């Protein structure tokens, strides 16, 4: 939304994301800051940021699938797992280079997601949401029980660092840059999809799938597409993760992870790409500050003991999520929009 007094003078302008010079400058500064981060921040922040960037990619997919297209998905971690496994298998067994293995992981995840996309055609609402839990169960089962040679079974798969033009991404900082670049591409793409014809039909199907059909939207295809895109993002995130940890195993992609993913889009706000990023940032920050506060707390008050301190942290995190929902059910993005709107109207109260 523009500040008062500024109007778009062409449709192109009206549709663009960055509409004032100030906004462009702010964005530029932000991007530069992201690139400069490893030079100024301590290693821990860089590592946290790396995991945030990877999560952000996964969450963007979830936001497109759940927030935008309205198909609640509690199996995003499984989709991410499929991506991670595919990338790992392709990289370690078929020796595909990074730049091929990563998108290929996304494609495989997308295909897996497609299955649930097709289910979404008939199954709706809670039923669909809960059906996606099956993705989690099936993923787990198949990885463990398919021949060990294929997916590593209980052994997991190790892989070599990503390599691009002869450069090996081994250090934390190089990995950060790799994730940053991939994440920026995916984020830009997310914005692109969200405001294009595809994003619109996603939202249309979310709001009213019957009416959408009568507008000429192929609802079946659209839902499948939403899952496809969502899972593709998850797969890319999974692939990055595989290169980051260089070991994939089944217990990295569990139901609890999926639930945290949902929590992130709730806190950020459903349906907004920016909201998804905010959600990742806020939840990860909360988690990270808690895990880093813990040891300090134990040192100060030793008699509490690690078991109590860290358990209490769970209560805190749960309350943060519940609190968000109670006081701002539409997420932080909504709050932000209200703030922007009143800023536009200022000094009039409404």
């Amino acid at each position: 939304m523009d500040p008062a007094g500024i109007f778009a003078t062409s449709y192109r302008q009206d549709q663009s994301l960055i509409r004032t010079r100030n906004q462009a400058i702010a964005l530029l500064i932000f991007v530069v800051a992201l690139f400069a981060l490893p030079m100024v921040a301590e290693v821990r922040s860089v590592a946290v940021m790396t995991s945030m960037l990877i999560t952000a990619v996964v969450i963007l997919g979830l936001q497109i699938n759940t927030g935008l297209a309205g198909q609640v998905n509690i199996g995003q971690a499984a989709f991410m797992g499929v991506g991670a496994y595919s990338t790992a298998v392709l990289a370690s067994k078929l020796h595909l280079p990074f730049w091929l293995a990563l998108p290929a992981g996304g494609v495989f995840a997308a295909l897996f997601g497609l299955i649930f996309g097709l289910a979404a055609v008939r199954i709706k609402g809670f039923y669909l949401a809960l059906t996606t839990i099956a993705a989690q169960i099936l993923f787990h089962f198949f990885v463990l029980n398919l021949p060990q040679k294929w997916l590593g079974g209980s052994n997991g798969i190790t892989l070599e660092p990503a390599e691009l033009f002869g450069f090996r991404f081994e250090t934390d900082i190089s990995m950060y840059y790799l994730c940053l670049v991939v994440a920026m591409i995916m984020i830009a793409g997310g914005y692109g999809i969200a405001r294009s014809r595809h994003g619109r039909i996603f939202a249309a199907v979310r709001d009213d799938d019957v009416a959408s059909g009568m507008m000429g939207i192929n609802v079946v295809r659209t839902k499948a597409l939403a899952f496809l895109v969502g899972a593709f993002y998850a797969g890319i995130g999974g692939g990055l993760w595989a290169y980051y940890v260089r070991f994939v195993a089944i217990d990295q992609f569990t139901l609890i992870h999926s639930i945290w993913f949902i929590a992130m889009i709730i806190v950020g706000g459903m349906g907004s790409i920016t909201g998804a990023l905010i959600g990742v940032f806020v939840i990860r920050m909360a988690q990270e500050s808690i895990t880093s506060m813990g040891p300090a707390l134990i040192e100060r008050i030793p008699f509490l003991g690690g078991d109590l301190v860290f358990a209490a942290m769970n209560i805190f995190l749960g309350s943060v999520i519940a609190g968000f929902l109670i006081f701002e059910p539409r997420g932080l993005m909504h709050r932000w929009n209200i703030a922007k709107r009143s800023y536009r109207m200022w000094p009039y109260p409404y």
Partner: protein
Amino acid sequence: MIDFLNYLINGALTGLLYALIAMGFVVIYRASKVFNFAQGELVVFGGYMVWWTVIQMGMPLWIGLPVAFVSAAIFGLMIERIFFARLVGESVFSMVMVTIGLLILIRGVVLVMFGPQVRAFPMVFPIDPLIFGDILISRSMLYGGLLTIALGFGLSWFFNKTRTGLTMTAVAEDHQVAMSMGISVQRSIAFAWILGSVLSTLGAMVHLSGRSINMLSSDIGLAALPVALLAGLESLAGLLLAGVLVGVIQGLASAYLDPLVGGAIGSVFPFIIMLLMLLIRPTGMFGWKTIERV
């Protein structure tokens, strides 16, 4: 043959246990339209209440159990008071999402209150099984199963036939409409959580009798999920059939297929049955059909 019968009967009883746990989901859904992701956590909390009264405080069963049930009910009420009271009037979706927060929160509460140790769960039902020839039936499962059947029909009657039950069903249809009729959505939600809590405690009692409890016991919530969906989220009596179906198929699969494939294929069966059924009937066997009019 005898093996087969054994698997059949015990599968059915396990299925009824799932149905009992799933009843927690359905009751909360049926009275508030909220799908409770923290159902497994309610089971754990209820279970710990039983542990606390009977083992920790050393109360005899006939005092300990009622005290545990009352505490669970109070816990359910507290959840409503703290988390849902303020949300009345907001979208149902937010309420459902709150239960995700609750899931994480209750885990923390359980950890802090009861610790992470595996604790002995009281022997609520005698441990010696009933033996009919070669057929062996665990008492806790049998009594639990009977209780589940009674509850299934009883609650079904309550929600479909009594005025209070119908009033709550109205809340599950549409919060705003219910409010416009002067129905207290808040009270209905409170009732839902109290009942859900108590049923979960009952479920914990049957599930854990004589065994052990720790926070991982919440996994039963996940196992019960396919039963709830198979029956349809609005159907209580339907749970019984769905439970037996899932239990029997799972039992047979893990008896005959697990050794064959060398993996726990039995545990994915419920989800596969559920998926197939939902593809045929998108709202489960007995759930409300979506009414779509343009």
